[in-house]
């Protein structure tokens, strides 16, 4: 079937729409998602198609609505709870961390929680400290949560469809900058399994690992470096948990140099964890120290220039790649 170019938000809507049509257990709740069609228009038109029972506006009550979603999931429904900003998901952390993540283990595997929290994070347009965070590391840290961060419309659709067919809690983290970005998506049915990284660009000199909105930046950096004959391989893990270490390590074995880019603050981040996995499992493949390009350890400031300076930009990525290329571990004197 033919491919079409559609927006990230349309791809998400198609995934929800198709899965709602296929499975009566799927429903969605969130603030302003029904009548208003959602702040990012992801749910536009779904109320008309599926009715109030399955597309429901909530009061402003994140702790409660996340908890209600987890409860419904335990009972076998497939709720999608949309939280406007990942920052607001903090109100529901109790339900996510102490309940949803642990239920399957605590029940000896007899209980499952097919709960999907869709939300978005990241900087963009000066929405300041409480609306700009990249908080994936908080979820990544918790055993029992799956953490998905799609960077393209194709991935967004396939991963969300897969999320709605598996049985564990999923933190589906979108990015506010990506909703209007476009990409090719096939007309036909497909899903993308979790734990399968995607090589967004093949290359041989450096492995550049990036997810979510850092993927377009990594791709731009790779294109720029290509002008100087530098061949960059861009690896997008797509799901941070489960993490496709196999694809990452294979790329490292090929290029021997690694740069990891994350928008989130550096401290305690997923990039650091990926770096630790690489050094532990592929230390002798490396020709240079692993370099991380990350957000500064600061709340996101309002001023646009400061906001921009606080998270990785394309030139930062380019500079980091050049640095690992020109770094050679000195041979021990024989």
């Amino acid at each position: 079937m033919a491919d079409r170019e559609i927006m990230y938000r349309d791809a998400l809507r198609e995934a929800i729409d198709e899965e709602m049509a296929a499975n009566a257990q799927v429903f969605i709740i969130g603030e302003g998602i029904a009548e208003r069609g959602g702040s990012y228009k992801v749910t536009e038109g779904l109320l008309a198609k599926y009715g109030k029972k399955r597309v429901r506006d909530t009061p402003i009550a994140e702790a409660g609505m996340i908890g209600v979603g987890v409860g419904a999931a335990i009972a076998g429904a497939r709720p999608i709870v949309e939280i406007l900003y990942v920052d607001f998901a903090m109100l529901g952390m109790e339900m996510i961390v102490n309940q949803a993540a642990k239920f399957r283990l605590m029940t000896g595997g007899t209980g499952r929680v097919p709960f999907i929290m869709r939300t978005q994070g990241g900087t963009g347009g000066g929405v300041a400290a409480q609306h700009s965070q990249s908080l994936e590391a908080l979820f990544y840290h918790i055993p029992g949560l799956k953490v998905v961060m799609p960077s393209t419309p194709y991935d967004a659709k396939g991963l969300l469809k897969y999320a709605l067919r598996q049985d564990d809690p999923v933190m589906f983290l979108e990015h506010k900058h990506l909703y209007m970005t476009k990409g090719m998506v096939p007309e036909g049915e497909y899903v993308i399994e979790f734990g399968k990284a995607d090589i967004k660009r093949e290359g041989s000199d450096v492995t550049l690992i990036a997810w979510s909105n850092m993927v377009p930046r990594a791709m731009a950096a790779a294109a720029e470096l290509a002008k100087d004959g530098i061949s960059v391989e861009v690896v997008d893990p797509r799901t941070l948990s489960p993490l496709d270490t196999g694809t990452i390590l294979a790329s490292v074995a090929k290029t021997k140099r690694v740069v990891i880019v994350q928008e989130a603050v550096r401290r305690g981040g997923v990039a650091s964890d990926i770096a630790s996995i690489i050094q532990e499992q592929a230390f002798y493949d490396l020709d240079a120290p692993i370099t991380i390009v990350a957000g500064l350890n600061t709340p996101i400031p309002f001023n646009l220039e400061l906001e921009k300076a606080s998270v990785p930009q394309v030139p930062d990525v380019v500079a980091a790649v050049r640095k690992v290329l020109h770094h050679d571990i000195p041979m021990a004197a024989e």
Partner: protein
Amino acid sequence: MAGKKEAAKSNVSREELLKYYREMLLIRRFEEKAGQLYGMGLIGGFCHLYIGQEAVVVGLEACTKEGDKRVTSYRDHGHMLACGMDANGVMAELTGREGGYSKGKGGSMHMFSRAKHFYGGHGIVGAQVPLGAGLAMADKYKGNDNVTFTYFGDGAANQGQVYETYNMAELWQLPVIFVIENNGYAMGTSVKRSTKSTTLFGRGLAYGIPGEQVDGMDVLAVKAAGEKAVAHCRAGNGPYILEMMTYRYRGHSMSDPAKYRTREEVEKMKAEKDAIEHVRDLLLTPGLASEEDLKAIDREIKDVVNASAEFAKESPEPSVSELYTDIYA
């Protein structure tokens, strides 16, 4: 609730009425200017205007004494101006400049002033409610008679932490006035669409907190209710709830297409309930002030607001080194 027509008499002094007129007009003109600067691209991010709700903060600020505290949501410009914060500093924060109250790092939603006991400026809906009770707790702990005005919206009233806070505030008899600014909508969701318990102050009764609904478009009614609440709190009788029935004329924020309500509804509120028109009427009808007197005030305010816009344009952008200040861990 007093409408415009019947309100031409009051036993309030000319000075007091002129003060309300001036303060409400300052907020309105300031917000109009902020809207313009937003339109010109000088203000980015979110910008939530307070136009329509001016009587609430102006009436309540008239009940305060030095030391009283206030805390509110992201719809905070009016509260800051009403408690005496400088229009220049507020506008410059909106443009993200060094001269802003948070040095350009907080933005429209996040400003503070220790000197004026203004504690923000919070972007997480409902977060200011427990914080406000905490401010009051500190005053009670220190043994003074200050009260804290904790403002939140009808939408915020559905957050669970509000009710945990109500319980503690009454249990511990904290000197906090919960001011629910019920403007009918939370973004595009009307009160009716988000709760079956639409008399919002009534929920406090379950925790033992007295409260009442007030015509929040009538600054005199606000003031009278505020005095009562403040007396209750200062005397050590614990919290009080004021549900201010008010209305925002503009969209939720600058990017709101406002499809959830009719233009007629908005126009009707403006025509029949406008808080500034009401005070104008109270001044003009009995001859307490002339058109000329009020025009002079209009001009004064226009100057203050224009000066704040100039200041906000001229104030330098914060230096990138600011990324490493005010951060300590």
